[in-house]
């Protein structure tokens, strides 16, 4: 296999901390936040992250497939989660220590609860508003109540971090630096 070429395209309004492990072809959209100690590995194909995403410490995002891994806007990847799904929609939450396998495609407004394992052997698509919870990774559908508030919280969170993180952390800029 050809060696992995590093190519980072980081939007000027994105906040990516210095202490982040990036590998491969990665594009990070405007206003997205990557906390220190997060890991983004584009092993086979490139990774494209939309705007307003928050990737917390210890989160691991891996693309093992050849095609582009697309992550939508305003997603939250909490501490120590691991996501390998080839597509992720908008406004999803992957909670602390959850794991999502490369066989799952995620729609929009989904929540994967803390410590859940989503590891089906066959390809699967998580419909919009799916909530996965509990130790056995049970599922149900969210009615969408409080969606506006949730979106508002996410936006304010990102806005706060964009202001605060640069005060205490060194940032990484696009293209090789």
């Amino acid at each position, binding site marked *: 296999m050809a060696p992995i070429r590093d190519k980072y395209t980081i939007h000027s309004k994105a906040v990516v901390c210095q*202490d982040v492990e990036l590998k491969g072809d990665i594009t990070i959209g405007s206003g997205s936040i990557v906390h*220190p*100690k997060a890991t983004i590995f584009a092993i086979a194909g490139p990774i494209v992250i939309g705007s307003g995403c928050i990737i917390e*410490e*210890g989160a691991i995002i891996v693309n093992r497939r050849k095609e582009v891994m697309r992550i939508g806007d305003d997603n939250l990847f909490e*501490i*120590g989660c691991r996501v390998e799904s080839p597509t992720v929609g908008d406004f999803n939450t992957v909670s*602390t*220590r959850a794991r999502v396998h490369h066989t799952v495609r995620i729609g929009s407004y989904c929540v994967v609860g*803390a*410590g859940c394992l989503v590891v089906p052997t066959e390809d699967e698509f998580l419909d919009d508003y799916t909530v996965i919870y*509990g*130790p056995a990774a049970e599922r149900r559908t969210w009615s969408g109540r409080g969606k506006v508030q949730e979106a*508002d*919280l996410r936006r*304010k*969170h990102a*806005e*706060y971090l964009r202001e*605060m*993180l640069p*005060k*205490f*952390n060194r940032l990484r800029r696009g293209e090789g630096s």
Partner: protein
Amino acid sequence: MDPPIYYSKAEYIETDTGNKVSRRATIAGPQNIILGGKTIISSGAIIRGDLRRTGAGHAVVISLGRYCVVGEGCVMRPPYKTYRGNFNYYPMKIGDHVHIGANTVVEAATIGSHVEIGKNCVIGKFTIIKDCARVADGTIVPPNTVIPALALFAGSPGRFVEDLPESTQETVETQTKRYYTRFQPLDR
């Protein structure tokens, strides 16, 4: 009695008050973190003191008491919420003699004294843990939970299992003190 637990002298920084902090731990915003003394922060731990409350004045983000141990790969970060339309992070307070096991994620608001938290736990946002409580290994405590004093919590989601004996305070205290004395440098 117990054999000492050795660590390489080069790895840990010891402060005047006896705190031992690994160089391999990630500590963001150290000016906002208070360590009570004789506290051990193991390698790979992440402590987020940078997520401070907005507003004027000196902000303490995370305060740890005496004889605490933060295990390997632990993540400690303050909880956040919106209050009256303003987004904010809120400080995290931890008492004395608190042991936190390896790879645990803590986003609690308050943790009392003499608390033992196991390995691989997730402590949700704004959790309040009262004195002398214990959280078993691998427990997932949902956000806003209150764990009462002298209770053992386990499972996913974390539930009450049993009451702990009243001697817990003494046993935990001696245990944490012994751990600190056992934790010795090795010159090499």
